[in-house]
């Protein structure tokens, strides 16, 4: 009977937390997009990470994060008049990545912070891939050349510093989110044990 309950609990929790993730993506995501704020993708990824990690503690079933991502992607997709394939694929890719990590490392400290690290790298990798598809394979070498050329002309390694600051900002937010999720996990422990 316990297994049936677990299955049902899993379905409900995927629906609840997947909808929460999708709701945040659709509302806050679209607001950030309209406000043209920088790092909006990283901000959303960080919030999604907190939801995913806490949901996984509540429902540690394998595959639940992937299913949550599908639900979130659909809600995000509904928020536009037509499906924007970019955000749709990005959310599902996030779900797959975290699913693999949490299935491997589970919901301990290692699982949380590895997820944070991967989510930190994810927007960078995503940018590299999408920009390379759009502008061609020479996009990354051109940007690296630019950092080098800028450093050479301005001095103080300025180009590398700018690139570093951009990358650090991308990395720090999801890592901070993982830390926040870890703090929340401890706070929520009594509620979860009930």
């Amino acid at each position, binding site marked *: *009977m316990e*297994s*049936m*309950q677990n*299955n*049902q*609990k899993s*379905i*409900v*929790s*995927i*629906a*609840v*937390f*997947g*909808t*929460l993730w*999708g*709701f945040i993506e659709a509302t806050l995501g679209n607001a950030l997009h309209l406000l*043209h704020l920088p790092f909006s993708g990283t901000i959303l990824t960080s919030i999604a990470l*907190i939801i995913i990690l*806490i949901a996984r503690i*509540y429902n540690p079933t394998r595959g639940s994060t992937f*299913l949550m991502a*599908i*639900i979130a992607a*659909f*809600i995000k*997709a*509904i928020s536009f008049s*037509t*499906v*924007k*394939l970019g955000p*749709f694929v990005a959310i599902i890719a996030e779900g797959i990545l975290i699913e693999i990590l949490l299935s491997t490392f589970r919901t301990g400290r290692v699982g949380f912070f590895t997820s944070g690290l991967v989510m930190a790298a994810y927007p960078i990798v995503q940018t590299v891939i999408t*920009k390379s*598809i*759009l*502008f*061609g394979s*020479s*996009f990354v070498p*051109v940007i690296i*050349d*630019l950092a*080098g*050329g*800028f450093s*050479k*002309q301005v001095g103080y390694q300025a*180009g590398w510093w700018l690139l570093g600051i951009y990358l650090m900002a991308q990395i720090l937010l999801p890592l901070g989110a993982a830390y*926040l999720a870890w*703090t*929340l996990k401890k*706070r*929520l422990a009594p*509620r*979860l044990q009930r």
Partner: protein
Amino acid sequence: MANLVRSKRFWISILLSIGIISLKVNPILLASIIFIITFIFNKNTIRPLKNYKFWIVILVLILIVPIFTGNQDTTFYGINYSSEQLQKTILMTLRGISVFLLFQVLTIDLKVNNIKPVFSKLGIKNFEIIYNLSNKIFPKIKSILTARYSLFKINWKKQKSIESIIIFLTDIFTDFFTLSDSILSEESEQYSVSPSNFINKYDLSQKPCLYIIVGDAGKGKTPWVEELIQLLQTDGHIVDGVISKKHKISDDNWYHDLIRISTNDKRQLTTMDKVETTTKVGKFKFYDDTIKWGNEQLKSINNSDWIIIDEIGLLEFDGGGFLPGLISSTEYSNQNILFTIRSSMQQYFDQFIIRRLPKLDQRERYYINL
């Protein structure tokens, strides 16, 4: 009409792809043609180009990269830049816009309803159930977040600290755990266990289990099982076993057929008429040769994912009926097993398993009351 639109999109996509591949031949001309074709196809395709974010990378590529990279061989208003790099980045930019427009053509009319069936067809378990549940709870989620955010704004005015944010998030997640728990209990109550609910509720791919469908006479155990068999077979499961189907001759005269699930072979199992038999339960007399036939059928079961026996009763509890066939087919089986029993027999069922089918006692056991 839909096919015509689809084929139009297809051919335009091919045309744009060819244009992108051969962009180097005459970048500005080809990119302009791509832009015009895309615009004629659907003017909404170019709308995202109005977003300033799209142009940031392009401005960096065209205005900044030639100044800081390559051989600075040309001057424009006193600013040195690399003409080779400028040509390269203009080509990159035109390619970027063209590829973006190609993606727009491919996805501009994509609707959720076009994608949803893909996930259902992929066989993602419980997708439809979760999706429908998600739609149902969406307003609740919205109201929880709205209410919590209103409280947070009040608290934030009093105390601006990280602790306030952590409390805010802790409260939100606590609310969502509570919401999940309440939906879970609601769902448990409202799920009358239909065969499709049964399939969705249980993880049928896990280790083989023993399912016992419990219901009074006339409650519909056999139709329930028949529906389940159909659903399982549709899902690609191989189902075998026997069902006993009741037929009415008149208001006070009934009989049962015993049907082998996999072959649909059947024999009359019971009668209310006067016949010579050694086996009688209540008003029903059992045909001994059908019981013998049923046992042979059960003994011959192999290579099935499910064994279903409808129904286990007093005869089997007393060591007769289909028990020999049951022992033979289920004792060393690795399939899911489903029995139907009457409600009055449920209290003796665990004892029956321990005494008569001890190998099945190791299995997880689920009772489903109809």
